[in-house]
C-alpha cells in the first residue's frame, strides 16, 4: 500500500473515531441535560406563580403539562421508530454504531422535551404542532444533521438526507465506500489525485467533528455547572415570595437576571451543534439566489434545467466539496468515481448513465466559491455598519461633552462676573457693622 493510501486509511479511521467521540459527548450532554431540564421547569413554574397567571390559563397549562409528561413517552417511542429505520437502512445492527448512526440516540428526548415544554409554558404554542415527523425534524435540526436513514416515508428520505450530506452520516460511511472505488483507476496519477481529495474530505469532516466535540464538551460542562447553580438559585427565588409588588428593587433585578439566565440555559440545550450543521441547505441556496440573482444566473447559465432538476444533488455536492480545493481534472475524476457508487446514485436519485454529473460538480464548486465570497462581503458590511454606528455614538458623545464644556465655561464666566459685586457687598456689610 502506498504512503498516500496509508494516509487515507488513517484519516478515515480518525473520522470514525471522531464520530464515536461525538456520540459519547452527545450521550453525556443528554444525560446532564435531562437534569437541567427538570430544574428549569421548576424555575419556570415559580415564575409562573409570581406572574400570577390566571387559573383558566393555569388549567390549560396543567393540561399541556400532562401532555408534556405523555410527550416524554411519545418522544421515546419516536426515537425507537427512528432508530429502527436507521438500522434497516444500514442493513445491520452493530455496524451502525461505527457509522454515525448512534448520533441521534439521546438527542430527540432532550431536545423535544425542552423545546416543547417551554414553547407551551411561555408562548402558549400548541403542542399539536409537533407531530411525530415534525418532532424528529426538530431533533435533526437540533443535531444539525441526520443519519444514514434512507428510504421509507416522511422527511427522512430525499431532501433532508441530501441537504445534510456531510459532515454527518452519509459523508463518512459512504465516503469510505466511494473512496474504495479509487482502486479501479489504473493510472497512478489519477489514484493519487483522488486519494488526496478523499484525504482532505476526511480531514475536513474530522475537524467538523472536533469542533462539535469541543462545543459539546463545553456545553456539558456548563450544563453541569448550571445544575448546581440553579439548585441554589431556586431556593433563593422561593425566598422572594410570589408577590412581585412586595419585592425590593434589588430582588426585582435579581429576578430579571434569573429570567434571562433561564432563557440562556434553555438555549444552551436547544441550540444546534455548529460542527454538525451542514454548510449548505436548499433554503440557504434559495436565500443566496434571491440576494444575488445575477451572480447565480451567471453560474448556472446553460445548465438551468439540470440545476433545478437536481438542486438537492447540487447542495449535497456543495457540502461535499466545501473547503476542498479542486481543479478541473480532480472534479472529472471525482465525477467518474461517484458514478461508480450505487449508494451515492440511489441517494441522489440519479441513474448510472446520467451524463451531467460532472456538470453538477462544476456548478457546485463555483457556487461554493461564490457563496464564500458573498459571506465574506456580508461580514465586512456588518463590520462597516458597526464601525459607522460606533462612530455615530462617538460623535454624539463628543457633542455632548463639548456642550458640557461650554456650559461649564459659561457658568464659570457668570460666577466671575458675580465675584466683584459680591465682594463689594461683603465689604459694605462689614463697614456697616
Amino acid at each position, binding site marked *: 500500500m502506498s504512503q498516500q493510501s496509508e494516509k487515507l486509511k488513517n484519516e478515515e479511521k480518525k473520522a470514525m473515531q471522531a464520530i464515536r467521540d461525538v456520540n459519547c459527548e452527545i450521550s453525556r450532554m443528554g444525560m446532564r441535560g435531562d437534569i437541567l431540564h427538570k430544574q428549569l421547569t421548576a424555575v419556570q413554574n415559580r415564575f409562573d406563580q409570581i*406572574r400570577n397567571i390566571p387559573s383558566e390559563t393555569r388549567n390549560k397549562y396543567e393540561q399541556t403539562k400532562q401532555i408534556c409528561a405523555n410527550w416524554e413517552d411519545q418522544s421515546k417511542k419516536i426515537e425507537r421508530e427512528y432508530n429502527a429505520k436507521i438500522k434497516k437502512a444500514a442493513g445491520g445492527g452493530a455496524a451502525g454504531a461505527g457509522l454515525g448512526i448512534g448520533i441521534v440516540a439521546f438527542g430527540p428526548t432532550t431536545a423535544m422535551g425542552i423545546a416543547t415544554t417551554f414553547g407551551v409554558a411561555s408562548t402558549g404554542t400548541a403542542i399539536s404542532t409537533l407531530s411525530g415527523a415534525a418532532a424528529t425534524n426538530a431533533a435533526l435540526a437540533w443535531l444539525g444533521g441526520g443519519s444514514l436513514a434512507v428510504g421509507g416515508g416522511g422527511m427522512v428520505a430525499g431532501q433532508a438526507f441530501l441537504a445534510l450530506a456531510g459532515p454527518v452520516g452519509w459523508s463518512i460511511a459512504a465516503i469510505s465506500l466511494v473512496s474504495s472505488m479509487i482502486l479501479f483507476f489504473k493510472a497512478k496519477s489519477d489514484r493519487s489525485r483522488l486519494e*488526496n481529495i478523499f484525504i*482532505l474530505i476526511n480531514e475536513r469532516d474530522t475537524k467538523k467533528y472536533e469542533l462539535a466535540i*469541543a462545543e459539546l464538551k463545553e456545553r456539558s460542562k456548563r450544563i453541569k455547572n448550571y445544575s448546581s447553580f440553579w439548585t441554589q438559585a431556586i431556593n433563593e427565588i422561593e425566598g422572594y415570595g410570589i408577590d412581585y409588588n412586595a419585592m425590593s428593587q434589588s430582588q426585582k433585578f435579581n429576578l430579571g437576571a434569573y429570567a434571562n439566565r433561564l432563557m*440562556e440555559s434553555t438555549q444552551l440545550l436547544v441550540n444546534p451543534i455548529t460542527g454538525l450543521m451542514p454548510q449548505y441547505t436548499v433554503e440557504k441556496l434559495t436565500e443566496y439566489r434571491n440576494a444575488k440573482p445575477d451572480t447565480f444566473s451567471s453560474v448556472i447559465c446553460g445548465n438551468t434545467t439540470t440545476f433545478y432538476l437536481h438542486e438537492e444533488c447540487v447542495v449535497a455536492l456543495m457540502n461535499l466539496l466545501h473547503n476542498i480545493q479542486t481543479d478541473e481534472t480532480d472534479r472529472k475524476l471525482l465525477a467518474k468515481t461517484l458514478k461508480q457508487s450505487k449508494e451515492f446514485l440511489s441517494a441522489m436519485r440519479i441513474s448510472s448513465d446520467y451524463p451531467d454529473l460532472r456538470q453538477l460538480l462544476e456548478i457546485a464548486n463555483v457556487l461554493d466559491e461564490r457563496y464564500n465570497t458573498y459571506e465574506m462581503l456580508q461580514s465586512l458590511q456588518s463590520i462597516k455598519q458597526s464601525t459607522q454606528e460606533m462612530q455615530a455614538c462617538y460623535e454624539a458623545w463628543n457633542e455632548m461633552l463639548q456642550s458640557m464644556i461650554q456650559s461649564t465655561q459659561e457658568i464659570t464666566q457668570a460666577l466671575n462676573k458675580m465675584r466683584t459685586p459680591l465682594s463689594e457687598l461683603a465689604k459694605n456689610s462689614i463697614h456697616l457693622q
Partner: protein
Amino acid sequence: MSQNVKIIEMLFSDTEIACSSCIDTALSQAELELESIDETIESIDALRPDCDKLDYILAASSGAICGIIDVFLVGKPGESPIGKLTDNWFANRVKDFAKLCGWKGDGDLASAIRFLENKFKVPYDQTSSGDIAKGVLGLNPKNHHFKSLAHNPTLLGLFFSILDQFCNTSHFASDGRLITIDNANGDFELRGNNIPAKLICGFVNWFGHLVSDVSGSSGSKGRGMGIPSPFWCWINDIAVLKATFKIPPSEFDKKMNDMAVKIFEEGFDVRFQTAQLIPVFVNETLVRIIYSVRRLIRYFKDMQKENRSFQLMWKQCESFSNPTVKRMLTVAHGTFCLIDIGDATIRGFASGGGTFNPCEFFLRLNITGVGRFTISLYGEVKRGFQIYRTEKDIEFAKKERIILQDYVDNLKKLSKIYNVNLHPKFIESLNRGDSCGAFEISTDMAKKVGVPDDKILKNKDDIDNYFKGGTNNVTTK
C-alpha cells in the same frame, strides 16, 4: 440578604469554573497546528533563491572580472605575476618555519631550506637511486617530488611517509604503477622509544620535510620544483589503489600519469595551485559582499528606525547558507569557469599549432575554480530535486491550511459565544449585591447564546412587563 450571600458563596465554591474553556484549549491546539502548517509552507522559501536581475548581473560581472584576473594575472606557471607573489610568500613562510625550528640564518632561503633538510631527514628523498631507478622509474630531480608518494601533500602521502620511515623504504608511482625500493637509506633512523612516539616523530618529519621542499631544494636554481598540487596527486592515488587490488594499469592511467608529471615539471606545484586559488577566493568573497551590502541597503531603506535590531539585520544580510547567495555563487563561478576554460582551450589549440595541446590546456585550467563550480552545481541540482519534492507537499499543505483555518475561525466564533468569564462575573455581582450589574451580565449572556431578541429582558420595564404582564414577550421600544 446575608443568608443569600452565604448561599451564593457556597454555590460559587461548588461549581467547576475553570479559567480556560474546552473551546479555548481546542483553539490553542488548532493554532499550533496552523503554525506548523505555515512553517511547512514557508520551508520552500528556504530552498528557493530570491535573486533579482541585478543580483545575477553583479554575480556574472564578479565572475567575469575574476576570470580575467585568472587569464592575465595567473595564467600558467612561469608567466604568472600572482604566481611570483605566492612564490615569495611561500619562501617567507619557509624562512619563518626554519626560524621557529632554530635556524639563525641571515635571511637566505637556501640556507633555511638546508637547515630544514638536515633537521627533518627522511629515507625517501632520493632524486635518483642509481641507473636502475633512472631506467625503471624515469626518476630525475625535476619529477622525483611527484613520483615519490611520500612527497605528496595528501593523506596517502602521509601514510607512505610514515611507512617509509618505519620500514626504511621508498615508494614511487610511475606509469600508473606502484614501485617500492627497500633499504632506501642506510643512515636513516626514526626517533622515538615507542610506537606512538615514533608515529609523532614520523608525522613531524613528513611535515617538516614538505616545508623544506615547498620552495624548492637547497641546491635549486631558480624557483625549484616545489611539492605537487594535492589536486593532481589523485593520479598517484589511483595507481596505489589499482596496485593494492591487483588491477593492471590501463593506457589511460599511464597517459594521465605522464600528463601529471609533465605539468609538474612545467612548474604546476602547490605554490602555483595557491596562486590559482586567489581569483576563486576573490570571486567568492566579492559575491558574498555584494549580497550583504545590497540586503543591508534594503534593510535600512525598508525598516523603520524603531523596529530595527542587530539580530534582524544579521538574519537579512548574512551571506551564508541561503539559496539566494548560493545561486549567485553558481552564476559567478560558472562565468569564471567559462572564461577560464575558454582561454585554456584557445591557448591549447594555439600552442599546438592547430592541434589540441592538452598540457597547455591543463596548465592554464584553474582546477580550483572548476572544483568550486562543480560543488555549486551539485548544490543547485540537489536543491532542485528538493524543491520538486517539497512543492507537491506544499500544495497539499496549502489545501489542508484552508480546512484548518476554517476550523480555527469557527472555534473563535464559539469562543465568543461561550465566553468563560461571564458566569463567574455574574456570580460575583450577585455576591456583591450588585443586582443591576448581574442583570446586565445576564442580558449579555442571553444575547451571546442566541436567545431571540424579543425574549431577552433588557431593562427594568421589561422585567416589570414580564412579571406583571404575564407574557413572555418583552415590549419593544
